[in-house]
């Protein structure tokens, strides 16, 4: 396993996509701090550095999907995985070493984001407030990265065609975002709609009527939407950046189960996979 990790990290060091990922992150930091600073100076908005720390998680899934395609997918294409099997490495070790390398690369990039945004944010906006909430949110964001890496590693390791796994990975990363927006919008429906009725045209007097919102989900539906939002990595990042619908401590459990299941089945399928 250590041999495989050493080889993977050597390949990572030589991988252009990894450096592009890093460059994109730095560009995003510049863009984010610039737009937030503008909104602070122009509209007197109060910007909390703590909030900025999690903004990147909104679309990191798309970046992780691209990175895993380029890193794992090319292993199939270049025959590196076949070579590792031929020289006697266990399939489970090959799978795990690739997963660890992906997680390592993505967490490394997110740490760079956190450190840079933390330093710049502390100068331009408010200093970071170190509290339990921040700590729990950071655990959540790291688990989120591991979840994304796990599911995309699952796909890229088990689908030999680089083109097919690319399509599935990128589609899936968008599907995660679309579904999380769908469920969160369902959950943000208010129970009642307030209607304003003009009761006197001459004096422009309004009467406000509270009406039951027909789109408001039932108790059962809310439970289901919350569950679907929590098992979706993008749903978790939505909750970290907005009002959470579930206790953020509980989100840790959802992410952990997601990681365990995707890797458990990923390894089982990979072990049975034949390389024709």
């Amino acid at each position, binding site marked *: 396993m250590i041999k495989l990790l050493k080889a993977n990290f050597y390949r990572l060091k030589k991988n*252009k996509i990894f450096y592009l990922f890093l460059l994109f992150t730095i560009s995003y930091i510049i863009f984010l701090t610039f737009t937030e600073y503008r909104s602070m100076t122009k509209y007197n908005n109060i910007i909390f550095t703590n909030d900025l720390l999690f903004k990147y998680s909104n679309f990191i899934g798309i970046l992780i999907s691209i990175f895993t395609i380029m890193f794992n997918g090319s292993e199939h294409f270049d025959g590196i995985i076949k070579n590792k099997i031929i020289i006697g490495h266990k399939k489970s070790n090959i799978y795990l070493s690739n997963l660890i390398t992906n997680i390592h690369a993505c967490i490394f990039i997110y740490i760079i984001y956190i450190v840079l945004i933390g330093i710049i944010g502390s100068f331009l906006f408010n200093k970071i407030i170190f509290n339990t909430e921040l700590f729990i949110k950071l655990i959540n964001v790291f688990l989120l990265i591991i979840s994304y890496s796990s599911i995309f590693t699952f796909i890229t390791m088990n689908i030999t065609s680089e083109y097919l796994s690319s399509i599935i990975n990128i589609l899936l990363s968008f599907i995660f975002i679309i579904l999380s927006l769908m469920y969160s919008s369902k959950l943000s429906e208010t129970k009642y709609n307030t209607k304003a009725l003009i009761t006197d045209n001459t004096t422009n007097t309004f009467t406000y009527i509270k009406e039951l919102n027909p789109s408001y989900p039932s108790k059962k539906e809310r439970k289901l939407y919350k569950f679907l939002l929590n098992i979706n990595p993008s749903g978790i990042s939505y909750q970290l950046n907005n009002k959470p619908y579930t206790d953020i401590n509980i989100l840790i459990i959802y992410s952990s189960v997601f990681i365990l299941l995707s890797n458990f089945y990923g390894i089982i399928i990979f072990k049975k996979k034949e390389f024709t």
Partner: protein
Amino acid sequence: MEYILKTENLTKKYKNFKALDNVNLKVPACSIYGLIGKNGAGKSTLIRIITSLETPTSGSYSLFNTKFDSKEIYQIRERVNALLDKPSLILNMTAYENLTLEYLTVGLPSLDGINDLLDLVGLSNVKNKKVKTFSLGMKQRLGIALSLVSNPDFILLDEPINGLDPEGIISIRELILKLNKKKHITILISSHYLDELSKIATHYGFLDKGKLIKEISANELNNLTQKKTELKVTNIKEAVKYFEQNNISYEVIDNTSLVIFDKINISEFILYLSKHNTELKEIKNTEETLENYYINLMGENND
């Protein structure tokens, strides 16, 4: 005889198609084993099974007397390497970097041997060039260098000269011979190029429709395919008498024709025949090549 690879009733089925059908094959130590068969005969499937990229449907195989499903097989596999249809190279890396990656994957403590390996395959002058600029022959040689990193005792080569130009073919042939003679590496090589195989192989296995129809050593094959001269005479008894007197090996075909396997002084032979009232009606030199042998064998198998 010590065998590096032994298969026992090795069978591989894909849905309704049998790619390998009860194959019993033995690869002797230090041999160059030529695996011959047309497309779809099962050569690549056999190599993929031996390299554990696929699992057999039934039957088994052992490498260095270790069964494929035993716990020790992972250690044994460190003594085996392969160059499949396409070498596992990262095109954006240099030859040196590709070898470094292989060194790390194998887990060697130092990178000292890389330059020697590049020398061996004749790529030391282009070691810092990106592999994407290499010709097919150079990529194949680098692929062989990669397969040598683990210092294997057994290498499987699947169609290593496919698509190569004559120069490339010669350099791969010389490299294979060098590895076998100097490093005593056992090599199993599958190829369509029978003429090339006949120049290097010490043993042959003929596969057809997933079945191993014949296994033969190069010496045995040479005996079967040696040069011979076919003669037709009016009195076969006189011709036989002459061959026996002169210790010439022969084989009678029918009342008028026979085959000889040694050189004869033809004028002396004709003179002898004429003295004994016998006439030489026809003389024909034939040489049966590996190709002819293969075609005949496939013909017999299909009949």
